């Protein structure tokens, strides 16, 4: 039988691609993906805000899709390609989306920001020339308590063009 099984209390070896690098680590079945990324693989840019799938702070890209990492388990990510905020741009640089966030003051405490950047990255790949309403609809899967969102919307709209050109 080809069933992959890991029993409670045992640890499975998880192998995945994180920000373009092959990485592996140990995880018992119940270990949340966000905890695994943070504390096993030191991707501290993944932020945990609610652990029940609503606030969006922990959003990462799994196989290119923006998803919550608090409502899935590390064992489920075995073999996946994961990108976190650390992997959005070359180390030491910012991409067009990140630069637009800085320009528009689209972050204050910055805690929700990594998740929003991951969402926007996937969103803009699918919707290269979004309307404001579409951006707000996508953003409604995140809670930001600092900005009131207007600056985030402006940043994403501005970045849309550049991002769709692959800048």
């Amino acid at each position, binding site marked *: 039988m080809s069933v992959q*099984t890991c029993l*409670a209390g045992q640890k499975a070896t998880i192998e995945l691609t994180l920000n373009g690098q092959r990485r592996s680590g140990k995880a018992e079945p119940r270990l949340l993906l966000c905890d695994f990324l943070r504390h096993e693989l030191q991707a501290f840019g993944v932020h945990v805000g609610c652990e*029940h799938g609503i606030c969006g702070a922990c959003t990462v890209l799994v196989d290119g899709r923006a998803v*919550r990492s608090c*409502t899935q388990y590390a*064992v*489920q990510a075995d073999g996946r390609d994961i990108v976190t905020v650390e992997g959005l741009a070359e180390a030491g640089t910012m991409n067009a989306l990140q630069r637009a966030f800085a320009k528009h003051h689209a972050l204050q405490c910055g805690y929700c920001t990594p998740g929003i950047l991951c*969402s926007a990255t996937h969103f803009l790949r699918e919707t290269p020339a979004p309307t404001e309403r579409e951006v707000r609809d996508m953003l*409604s899967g995140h809670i930001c308590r600092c900005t009131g969102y207007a600056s985030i919307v402006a940043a994403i709209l501005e970045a849309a063009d550049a991002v769709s050109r692959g800048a």
Partner: protein
Amino acid sequence: MKPVAFDYHRPETVAEAVALLADLRDDAMPLAGGMTLGPMLNLRLVRPRALIDISRLAGLRHIVQDGDKVVTGAAVIQNDALRSDVIRRQVPLLALALPWVGHFQTRNRGTLGGSVAHADPSAEIPLCLTVCGGTVVLRSRRRERRVPARRFFVDALTTLREPDEIIVALEWPRAPAQSGWGFAEIAQRHGDFAIAAAACRATLDDEGRVKDLVLGIAGVESRPVLIDTENFRGGRSTEVGKHLSDHSVAGVTPMEDHVANAEYRIALTKVLVERVFRDACADAERRRNKLQ
């Protein structure tokens, strides 16, 4: 906020999955996208001994046209369905409703089958499946069976799925070319559980009279409810809306919770029914004109 310890099984075929379920029964829960189960696990509201991860099963991700129906695998991701041409053309109601399902980020992982299995009383996908006259395909080690959506949803979070069964597919009758569709809901915030939702399919004759009408509501009772619309056939689409909305709430006993009392749910239902009926009729007109 961490889940209890559980065993994790990731079968690669449906046969393996149902074999596991048959052995573990009540102690195991199938896990698809985890958009509902994940929070419940983390809050320790559910405490399964084992999770059977069906999100990677081969053969549950398809969207295919099969004669007079469209079959969607249970593990079809909601956003994939939203972007599917087959769905847009053949199951327009689902395409109308999907943008209301959660958020972009949850639709990126949430599945059609997961929403149907969970059977939240406010959920859009069960409502659509019910209004479309769709079918839930279930498989266990014993058998495969097909249950009409109209019977499948029993109560809040309660369906006819047996503990050893998994949902493998949903079957959506292809939309008749002249049918028009309407979907609407009202929630406290965008993406929240709907306080009330309504979905409608209408076909009109050349004189603008109602030839065929299916109307369903969700969020109001503890499962999707179909309204008996028999008496409205033959009525003029421009005239029957108000009566229809009064009629639609006549036999309904709404849930009450801290978000909305019964009276308010009734009021919203009436507004939504009128709206989806109007939208469906307008859509039907449009489609008919296009065909001509």
